[in-house]
């Protein structure tokens, strides 16, 4: 509860900061301090210290899994602010409002990590989506940004409509929006409503996490949005929606009795295949990262495929590893003058620290051992093996991971083995230190993943 209330309040505080001052460093300080406060409040709640006593009548359930996810999402956002706050302020004149919208999105993320009724699932997803439409279109004079915002908005609200239809059909079958109660209630003769509702809900959530065949908006939107916001969209928001997806279907699949695993495995395989194969042919690193985020979503879908203890641990690790690495790469990308692969040529000579840290981030995304990306992928695949059926999917995923090495290593190859200017904007020493810190975290958790996972149980 701490996180939900505080993040909404902090959003309002930042809106007022925007009225009273236009000083950029003040706005940046207020936003970063606010986020630190939010993170501390959430950690306090993990240790049983509640700031607000609210009776949610079982509409929200705060368990370790959700709170740990919140902590990871807020820490990733904090690193994102430290790296990119200056670039956020460069997007347009309404700097404080962008931070306010990000806080509202975090409020939505903390709702979807703790919902227990379909009403709050819907509200949480919408609280995440609506500010994102604005952030996507925040570069008002840029036609690409306009186009991305319109496309995202139309696709997003279309999938919201589908989601609502799913929720209503499930309500018709069970007579309640609460997930716990819905599992106990049974009305013979209305099972078909429940199943079709669940299917519609699955389609709309697949839209939101950009799983194939509902992924087509993702590359365009990620490419068109201002790069700093693409970074946020592709990491924290995507992980948040994934948590909602996993929490929802952990309960609902088990009661339906159909072979859901077949549908999920087909979607997973299609997502892995399309994401990885299309990423190979991209010329722009930003667009390659958009397709790579589809491919990584394919791995995260394994949490849905095999809901057991390993997959819960896996999704936490995946969120952490994927967010850290992607935020880092995007922060470097924002500083580049040229977003194509050629733009990275010779970066190792001009900016050795940037090149070295980017290499670690890319290795983590590709899932090379000693990085957290390896353990994230390992837990996901191990959970699928443990669940026992559809083993072909595991082999397919390993093949796709091998394919992904090609396009990640292409960036490393440009940085180290090709001659070029590697032109970047001014890089501050603090920026370098934070990149080094993130790379260190990736290796640290890559060697000791239990440092994070222990929080789930103790």
């Amino acid at each position, binding site marked *: 509860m701490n996180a939900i209330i505080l993040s909404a309040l902090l959003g309002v505080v930042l809106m007022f900061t925007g009225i009273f001052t236009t000083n950029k460093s003040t706005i940046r300080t207020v936003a970063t301090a606010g986020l630190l406060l939010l993170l501390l409040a959430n950690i306090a709640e993990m240790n049983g210290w509640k700031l607000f006593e609210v009776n949610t009548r079982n509409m929200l359930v705060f368990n370790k899994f959700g709170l740990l996810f919140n902590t990871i999402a807020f820490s990733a956002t904090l690193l994102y602010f430290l790296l990119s706050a200056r670039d956020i302020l460069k997007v347009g004149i309404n700097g404080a409002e962008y931070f306010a919208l990000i806080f509202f999105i975090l409020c939505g993320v903390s709702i979807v990590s703790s919902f227990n009724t379909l009403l709050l699932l819907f509200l949480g997803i919408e609280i995440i989506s*609506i500010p994102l439409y604005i952030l996507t279109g925040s570069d008002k004079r840029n036609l690409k940004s306009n186009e991305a915002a319109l496309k995202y908005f139309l696709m997003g609200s279309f999938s919201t409509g589908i989601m609502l239809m799913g929720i209503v059909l499930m309500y018709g079958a069970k007579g309640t929006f609460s997930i716990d109660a819905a599992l106990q209630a049974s009305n013979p003769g209305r099972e078909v409503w429940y199943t079709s509702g669940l299917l519609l809900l699955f389609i709309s959530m697949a839209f939101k996490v950009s799983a194939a065949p509902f992924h087509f908006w993702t590359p365009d939107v990620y490419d068109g949005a201002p790069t700093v916001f693409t970074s946020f969209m592709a990491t924290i928001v995507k992980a948040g929606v994934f948590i909602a997806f996993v929490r929802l279907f952990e309960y609902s699949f088990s009661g339906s009795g159909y072979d859901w695993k077949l549908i999920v495995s087909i979607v997973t395989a299609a997502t892995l295949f399309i994401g990885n194969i299309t990423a190979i042919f991209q010329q722009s690193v930003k667009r390659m990262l958009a397709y790579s985020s589809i491919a990584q979503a394919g791995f995260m879908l394994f949490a849905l495929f095999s809901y057991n203890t390993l997959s819960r641990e896996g999704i936490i690790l995946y969120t952490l590893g994927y967010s850290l690495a992607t935020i880092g790469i995007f922060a470097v990308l924002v500083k580049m003058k040229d977003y194509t692969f050629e733009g990275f040529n010779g970066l190792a000579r001009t900016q050795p620290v940037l090149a070295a840290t980017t290499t670690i981030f890319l290795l983590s995304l590709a899932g090379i051992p000693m990085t957290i990306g390896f353990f994230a992928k390992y837990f996901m695949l191990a959970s699928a093996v443990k669940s026992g059926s559809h083993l072909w999917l595991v082999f397919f995923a390993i093949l796709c991971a091998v394919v992904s090495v090609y396009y990640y290593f292409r960036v490393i190859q440009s940085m180290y083995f090709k001659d070029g200017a590697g032109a970047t904007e001014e890089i501050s020493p603090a920026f370098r230190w934070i990149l080094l810190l993130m790379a260190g975290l990736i290796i640290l958790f890559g060697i000791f993943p239990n440092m994070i996972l222990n929080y789930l149980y103790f």
Partner: protein
Amino acid sequence: MPINLYIFLALALFSIGVIGVLTRRNAIIIFMCIELMLNAVNLLLVAFSKMHLADSSNKAMQVVTNGADAQLFVFFIMVVAAAEVTVGLAIIVMMYRNIHSVDVNFLNRLKN
């Protein structure tokens, strides 16, 4: 009236909305079709609410609530739809200012 009639009506409205979104090229009309989808959902929610109220007086059915929460859900959908209209129309106006058109066929700059 049997509940099936309401379901058919709501699904028909919903399908008109979906088909409109997929086939029309004018951003405003696509937007109206999305609103149609949301309102079909509202209609169905109210119908289900009444249905569960009727069920709750029937002891044979195993019912959890008397359907009041669906009426509340309708208000939430209305509020969220209003928020979406605010943002969506602003985005459409922003696009119109730049390219003087609301035709989504213009949305192909990102493809290449």
